[in-house]
């Protein structure tokens, strides 16, 4: 009796999870599969949503709702051809995304690792207060410091330059917050052992902390990458020059027009993140895990 109840419960749980999994993966599946559809097919599916004028509405009274279609009638690579070869601006903007995101990820990883070490393992006056400040600033939405930041960028001559986004990005406190949590997991005795073994603070940092906080750092790097790869607001404001804007903005712009293109571009755009994620999933999960456990 108990056993049977248990099995029913188990099946119920798995069903719930399966439904959730389908819901979670569905938008992605739509994006990816639709990128292989012809413009015609996509128009058929989405026109009711994107092309809302009276004439098109009156034309087809039988089907005035959009449809999600997972399997293309005909698999077409035309969209990819358009995105990659015909429209060179896609590649340019992709490159812009890379030029903005990578310096931020690398910079923030370095800066945040150093700072997180100080917060997690070194004692100094005002540590708790300063860290509280870091948390508060991290919680503030981007718009809060927008104006002064904008002015600051102006002062430093960074307006309309990638650096106006990269520099604040590097010094974002999110990485510090995340890494401090996972560095606190490292027992002090490792550091003390290294000190007794003759390591200088820099050596301790490089040879003990860095390897031991590997998962945390990797997770942080991935999260920072995701966050900045998806950035919309900052480039919108700081980069008036369309030639310098990253792909995230390009995507938000083509959505009105060529839908098929948008799907292909979206798919291409999420590829680096997805691959990155699948490759480093273990680290990401472990890193997030570590960051959540308090020492």
């Amino acid at each position, binding site marked *: 009796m108990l056993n049977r109840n248990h099995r029913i419960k*188990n099946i119920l*749980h*798995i069903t719930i*999870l399966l439904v*959730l999994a389908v819901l979670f993966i569905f*938008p992605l599946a739509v994006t990816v599969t639709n990128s292989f559809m012809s413009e015609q097919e996509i128009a058929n*599916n*989405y026109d*009711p*949503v994107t092309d809302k004028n009276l004439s098109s509405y009156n034309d087809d009274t039988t089907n005035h*709702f*959009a449809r*999600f279609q997972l399997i293309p009638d005909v698999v077409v690579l035309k969209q990819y051809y358009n995105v990659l070869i015909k429209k060179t601006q896609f590649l340019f903007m992709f490159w812009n995304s890379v030029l903005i995101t990578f310096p931020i990820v690398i910079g923030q990883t370095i*800066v*945040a690792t150093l*700072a997180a070490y*100080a917060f997690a393992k070194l*004692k*100094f*006056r005002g540590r708790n207060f300063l860290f509280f400040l870091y*948390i*508060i*600033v991290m*919680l*503030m*939405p*981007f*718009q*809060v*410091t927008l*104006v*002064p*930041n*904008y*002015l600051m960028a102006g002062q430093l001559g960074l307006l309309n330059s990638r650096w106006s986004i990269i*520099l*604040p990005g590097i*010094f974002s*406190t999110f990485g510090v917050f995340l890494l401090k949590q996972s560095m606190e997991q490292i027992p002090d005795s490792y550091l003390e052992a290294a000190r007794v073994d003759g390591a200088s603070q820099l050596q301790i940092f490089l040879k003990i902390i860095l390897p031991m906080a590997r998962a945390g750092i990797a997770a942080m790097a991935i999260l920072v990458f*995701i966050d900045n*790869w*998806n950035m*919309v607001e900052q480039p919108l*404001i700081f980069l008036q020059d369309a030639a310098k804007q990253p792909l995230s*903005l390009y*995507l*938000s712009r083509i*959505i009105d027009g060529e839908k098929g293109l948008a799907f292909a571009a*979206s*798919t291409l*755009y*999420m590829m680096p*993140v*997805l691959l990155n994620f699948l490759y480093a999933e273990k680290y990401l999960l472990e890193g*997030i*895990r*570590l*960051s*959540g456990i*308090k020492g």
Partner: protein
Amino acid sequence: MRTGKLKTNNGCLAWLFLGPSLLGFSLFYLLPFVTGFFYSLVDGPINGTFVGLHNYGALLKNPSFLSALANTANFTLICVPLNMILSLGVALLLNQKIQGRNLFRTIMITPLVVPVASVVLVWQAFFDLNGVLNSLIHALGYPPVDWMKTNWSRMVLLVIYLWKNIGYSVILFLAGLQNIPAEYYEAARIDGASQSQEFFRITLVYLTPTTFFVFIISIINSFKVFRETYLISGEYPYNSIYMLQHYMNNMFIALDYQKITSAAFIMAAFIVAVVLLLFIVERKITNMIN
């Protein structure tokens, strides 16, 4: 020989490690913060005269700001607890021995990595008046709903927010759950605790640090929903999802420094208050555990 104390507590060294971060932090966050505060106290961006709290007073009478404030508070108050409850639920499910647990975990966190702009089209197609959701409703014989243009829009945002953020919280909670020693449960079971007592007296209590962390992450992410909102409905969405970020963004476009900075500081004050409160609660519970 006696140049100073032994460098074990190493204040200066800490500052050295902290240096780069602190410099950037001061320059790009703290200083803007302070200047922002300055702007909120004067009446014009250049050569403005000091007007004290006048801007704040004016803002608190501004209907658009008030509605943005209410909407943001409303949304955060709903979405953060809901995210925490649901993700704890899923984490509890996943914490059992279930086939394909790791695959579920991976799937749950995938939305987090997907670029906002990539799926906006899908959300639009789903929630539009002529969208997929309405075609389902229509098929069932009900009148369609304009999801983004009615009070349902808040629900839509909620769905998008949950879709994106549950996975992250689930992983955090899962880690927290796995960190609770099994002995506690065994001891409780032997002491005759019911399942709900186990949950409330052990699981919840020992999850407090994790919960605090999830809370902070959930707040951060609740602000990030703005991206989706903005991409789906632009600068002036339906009134109930017109958030503080819309207000601030629009004020930025109009470069109304006084309004945007005062708004920012009112928002900051709220955040600080909430976090402080939670900090205290968390400290209390953590001390209780130890």
